[in-house]
Structures are given as C-alpha cells and as structure tokens.
C-alpha cells in the first residue's frame, strides 16, 4: 500500500491551527485590557454617566426631605433645610455639587435635562435626560424621597 504525501504536512496544519488559537488568545487579552480602560468607555457608553446619576440621586433621595426645582436643575434639601446636593445642566453637561460646593461632572452631551415633581406626589421627582445624539438612549426614571427613613 502506497502512502500518499502532499506539500502541506500534517504538522504544518496543526502548527497553523495553533497559530490561530494563539492569535485568538492574544486578541482576548487585548480586549480584556481595553475593557479595563473605563475612560475610553465613558465616551462610547452613555449609560455609565446615567449610572452615576442613578447612584447619586438614589443616595440623596434616601436622606432628602424635599425637592426644590431650580432652572435646569434640582436641589435636594435635607433636614433643617440644609441642601444636600444640587443637580444642574450647564453647557450641555450635567453636574452634581454637594454641600461642600464640590462639583462633579455626571453626563455630557445632553440636549435637555428635565427635573419636575409628579403632578400628585410632591415627594417624587421625575428626571428626563435627552442626549444631543438622538440615537443615544434617553434617561427617564423617578426618585422618591425617603427622608432618612
């Protein structure tokens, strides 16, 4: 029985397969590295900014006693009429400043930010954020005051 041989040996084929697997592994490592770079993702994914809004507003609403609507923003007022935090849209970006007047950028590239109280419930704040890019996800949710309960 004759043994047939070609130009590409089995060893070469296996070697090629190994090379592809190695390339795949290198690519996985690169993707993992890129996913760790949060700063790059902030611009790509608006939900990271929304998460900051959600996180801060939930915390502030837990201790807030009442909301005070201001132009393009809202103030969360705590016990003894002491302001806890202010959220305001300035130059298409939403900032949060706390009682120490420390300002933090939450979301940028916003066309509109709407803060208003529910028609029947003055302890419920409705928040709508509309991005400049209309294909981007809008933000709509509410925050009920707990007043430290």
């Amino acid at each position: 029985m004759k043994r047939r041989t070609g130009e590409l040996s089995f060893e070469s084929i296996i070697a090629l397969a190994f090379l592809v697997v190695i390339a795949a592994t290198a690519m996985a490592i690169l993707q993992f590295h890129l996913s760790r770079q949060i700063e790059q993702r902030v611009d790509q994914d608006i939900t990271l900014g929304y998460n900051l809004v959600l996180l801060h507003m939930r915390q502030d609403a837990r201790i807030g006693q009442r909301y005070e609507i201001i132009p393009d923003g809202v103030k969360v007022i705590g016990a003894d009429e002491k302001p806890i935090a202010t959220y305001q849209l300035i130059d298409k970006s939403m900032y949060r400043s706390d009682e120490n007047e420390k300002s933090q950028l939450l979301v940028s590239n916003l066309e509109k930010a709407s803060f208003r109280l529910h028609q029947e419930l003055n302890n419920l704040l409705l928040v709508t954020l509309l991005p400049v890019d209309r294909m981007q996800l809008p933000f709509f949710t509410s925050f009920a005051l707990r007043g430290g309960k």
Partner: protein
Amino acid sequence: MKNMTDSDRTRKKHKQPTNILELLLALSILSVSMYPLVYIFRISQIPRQKTQTEYLATLLAHHVIETIVARKSVDPSFLPFMSDAEPVVQSADSVAPVSNYFRGICENGENITENGPSQLFWHLKQFNCQIDTYYLEGALYKVIVYISYQNEGRNMRVFFERLLPQSDSVEQESDE
C-alpha cells in the same frame, strides 16, 4: 530520461488528489480553530442595543417602584393593584390604555406621545408594564413590576419586586 518523465507524471497523478485532501483537512481544522477567534470577537463586542434596551427597561421598572414608594409614603394604606401588560406611551397604532404609572408624566401633564418628546416616545414605545401583586403571610403585600419588550422576536422582561406592609407598619423592601 524517458523513465524520469514517466515517473514524474506518475508522481503528479498521485499527488493531485492528496493535495486536495490535505487542503480540505487544513480548511476544516482551520475553520474549527477559527471558532474561538470568532467567539471571542463576538463576546468582546458590547451588545449595545440589547444592553441599552434592558437598561432602559430597568429605569422604567425603577420609576414604577419609586412611584409606589412615594404614594405609599403619602398614603400608608395604599396598595397597588394588579394590571395586565399595558403600553407606557400613547401611540396612534394602539388602543390599549397607557399604564397607570406612566399617565400624565409629560411636562404638559399629558401622556408621552409622538408629539411630545419624540426622542423619548420612540425609545419607550417598545415597552409594556405589568403589575402582579400577592398577599403574603405576616401582613405583607408583594408587588412585582414587569417591564417587557421584544428582542429579535423573543419576549424579554425585566422585573423589580418589593414587599410592602399591608398596614402602615414598618416597610420592608426588596428590590431585584
């Protein structure tokens, strides 16, 4: 010389099918080994639309739960009622009533319509809101808020649940 040419021809004749077989084998092994590459590339891509739709559904469920909390805070005897899956916006192609929790939430006091913030309307049009409620032991009342939508023909839904006291005793809560 003639012998050499004959042997070359014979070798070529035998070599041709072997090469095709080897090529097929190489292609099959390479295609199998390419699978991890394609798989890793696929999972490394952010499933933008799917994740964002789910994210928006979570925000809507959060809105409903917060509305219940706010209403319960104002009226401790309040218990939300059950409802079928109802749209969250008012559209011309649907006669179903808008969910109670999404009525009059526009700045002008109207439901969200195409004429209102259209950006919000088109993103929210796909969602329905359903409320399930259960009476539990220990004078508790369980509320489950479902926000449903379709993704590639499949029904998806996000849910939050919350335990409320049936009386105005201390509130227990559990969000998911």
